[in-house]
């Protein structure tokens, strides 16, 4: 029984971690010689962009007419662009938090309220970093959900009573 639980646990952990696993080039050197090139690459197996699980290096000699150095350079450039893009995304407030508020906000309130939260989020981000800023954002979302959901319930009750009264009148007059 316990072995099945262990396998299931490892499988579950794998499913959670697997989408975040990346092999990145952390160091790259291209040396030219009269007979061709020497490519020295250091790779890292990472979870997300911060946690390194394993690191290894390779050195390869390739002939001067090989397209491999160009491919490696293209890959390094692509990874750098991905990191820049990811950095830009990280500075934005958490999408799930915004979505939770979207469920309760009226259309005319969405832009100003979410804009206010984003303005403060950027201040907290600049002072304390991403994790604390995200925690701050979710704390604000949770605190805001109480009055917003209360308003939604009050509105539902109000319109429910109106519908009920309308139904009673309709039955009487039928």
């Amino acid at each position, binding site marked *: 029984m316990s072995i099945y639980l262990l396998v299931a646990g490892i499988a579950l952990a794998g499913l959670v971690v697997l989408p975040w696993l990346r092999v990145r080039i952390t160091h790259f050197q291209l040396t030219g010689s009269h007979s061709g090139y020497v490519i020295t690459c250091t790779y890292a197996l990472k979870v997300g962009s911060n946690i390194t699980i394993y690191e290894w290096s390779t050195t390869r000699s390739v002939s001067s007419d090989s397209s491999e150095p160009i491919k490696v350079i293209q890959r390094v450039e692509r990874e750098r662009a991905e990191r820049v893009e990811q950095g830009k995304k990280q500075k934005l407030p958490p999408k799930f938090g915004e979505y939770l508020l979207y469920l*309760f906000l009226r259309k005319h309130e969405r832009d*100003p309220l979410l*804009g206010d939260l*984003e*303005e403060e989020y950027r201040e907290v981000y600049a002072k304390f970093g991403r994790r604390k800023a995200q925690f701050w954002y979710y704390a604000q979302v949770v605190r*805001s959900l*109480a*009055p917003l959901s209360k308003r939604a319930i009050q509105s539902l009750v109000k319109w429910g009573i109106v519908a009920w009264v309308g139904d009673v009148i309709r039955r009487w007059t039928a």
Partner: protein
Amino acid sequence: MGENTKYLGEFEEIVLLAVMRLGNNAYGVTIRQTVEGVAERPTSIGAIYTTLERLEEKGMVSSWQGEPTEQRGGRAKRYFKIEGPGIEALNDVEAMRKRLRAGVPGLRPAGSGI
């Protein structure tokens, strides 16, 4: 304005005073900061907006859209301004408070501070 719409809740009064205090710079962030900083009342942006909506329905505040800015992800600010019925309601609350407190032993007169 109907009789039942001129009454103010305690939090509504605080938000109205914050809007009045901020003048032309009254929007979500500054109102929340004033309520927390000056009135020392912890609150959320959701509570501020639901209260401002009630006050707007009562005709005590009006609002208008500002310019979208990069700092806010391209979203516009919504500025608020106190209107005549709002000022009247604040004065009524203060007068009522003075009448109720007058002559009650053990209380400082209203508006005398701490």
